[in-house]
């Protein structure tokens, strides 16, 4: 499998007079998880939209480098904060949705659906509707749908923000285990420092609007050693970097 790099060159974006992102340049290296954190309204989600081709930046460009893994149907794939499941489709139907408009035989489609549902522990829920599932299970469907297309780059938009703390903990573990098996290049947007430090190779800190890169912090602790105690100094440093901005952002009109 050949992971892919994602290169962001001098990207700026605005909505009319409102500047949201200002001159962002960064490279997401092959097979790394880059976390992007910043206060609310700093343009994190806008940046992620640009990275996946859902938004056109006002300035700058985004490049990919490398070839997608074999059988990849959708090289750049999102996992959404609100899960973005079709409520009228079953779990299997939601995964199928990502595969329906591809050159893929019915049998292979079924095989892929079955494979990812088994991998995520959703096989017994294949015919359940989203409303019958807990938030954690719904996001597992979102993850299964993303894995089914065998992405080269995963873009995660605050994937655990809508979940309660315990579920979030469980899903971090599961996501990490899945990621270690595939090592897919990933961009993980979050406002949760602990999530960023548990998962990422590097953490990119964005400033308040208009979002600029304030800092790029490498998480130099092996993934198996990331206990709260080991991460404490880094957490302290990141919090110091963002707390003034977070306080100011909190007191802004939105």
């Amino acid at each position, binding site marked *: 499998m050949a992971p892919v790099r994602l290169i962001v060159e001098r990207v700026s974006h605005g909505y009319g007079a409102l500047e949201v992102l200002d001159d962002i340049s960064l490279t997401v290296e092959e097979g790394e998880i880059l976390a992007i954190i910043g206060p609310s309204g700093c343009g994190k989600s806008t940046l992620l939209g640009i990275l*996946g081709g*859902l938004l056109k930046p006002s300035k700058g460009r985004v490049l990919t480098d490398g070839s997608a893994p074999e059988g990849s149907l*959708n090289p*750049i*794939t*999102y996992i*959404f904060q*609100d899960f*973005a499941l*079709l*409520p*009228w*489709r079953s779990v299997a139907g939601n995964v199928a*949705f*990502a595969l*329906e*408009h591809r050159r893929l035989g019915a049998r292979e489609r079924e095989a892929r659906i079955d494979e990812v549902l088994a991998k995520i522990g959703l096989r017994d829920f294949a015919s359940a*509707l*989203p*409303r019958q599932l807990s938030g954690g299970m719904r996001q597992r469907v979102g993850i299964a749908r993303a894995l089914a*297309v065998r992405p080269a780059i995963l873009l995660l938009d605050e994937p655990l923000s809508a979940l309660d703390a315990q579920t979030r903990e469980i899903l971090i573990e599961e996501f990490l285990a899945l990621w270690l098996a595939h090592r897919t290049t990933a961009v993980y947007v979050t406002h949760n420092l602990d999530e960023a430090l548990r998962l990422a190779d590097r953490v990119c800190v964005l400033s308040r609007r208009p979002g600029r890169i304030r800092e790029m912090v490498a998480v130099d602790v092996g993934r198996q050693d990331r206990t709260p105690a080991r991460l404490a100094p880094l957490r302290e440093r990141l919090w110091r970097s963002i707390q003034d901005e977070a306080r100011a952002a909190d007191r802004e009109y939105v």
Partner: protein
Amino acid sequence: MSEPLRFRGGGFVTRPKPISSCLAGLAVVAIWQAVASAGWVSPVFLPSPAGIARALAEMALSGQLWRHLAASLQRILLGFALGSAAGLAFGLALGLLSHARAAGLPIVSALFPIPKIALLPLFILWFGIGEPSKVATIALGVFFPMAIATYSGVDQVPRTLIRMAQSFDVPTHAVVAKVILPGALPGILSGVRISASIALILVVAAEMIGAEFGVGAFILTAGNLMRTEDLLAGVCLLSILGLAVGFLVSLAERRLLAWR
């Protein structure tokens, strides 16, 4: 000193009480029948429920009922089919295309409040007194609420579902067919409910202006002949028709919107 906590919750919740529902209905009919039987009111002004039931039975046996009902249903079905198909297509365009919305929405908003029965004389001039003018009135009456319900249904589809579909490179026609239409279905079905009752109003009004057969024509004739029992039998028929339509829409909602 301890004392039991005072309960202050409860109330403000209604529960189904089927016995009360039945009793209320029976009571209304019983009082009505008693007033009529006592002879306090002339049967020409207020016939008894039993008399109305008899009139209905006679209509059914003589075949009159079916003839009038068939004429009305045919107009409703045809007008509703034409108007709702056009309204659906137009509403979809209003919801999806900026130019269609900019051009069409002010026009729809301006024409929507016109009571469509006011246009029947114009349609009679255009299409003659026969079926086409009645069907056109119903179709037009159905068109506007369907267009508006579809348009707002499309507007209510969560943007994130559309973005999700785009992020998986789902082609535009499939986004419309598999995301936007099913997502707009709750709005569309409530449009169906509203426009079905509008169709019922319009068919009666149109039949009163000029028709040989149809429930509206039957009621008007009965009134002209002071046959109040027949008149109210026709009204009962309309009530049953309205209830049946509502029941069908509810059935469709239960089947098609089970995912909610």
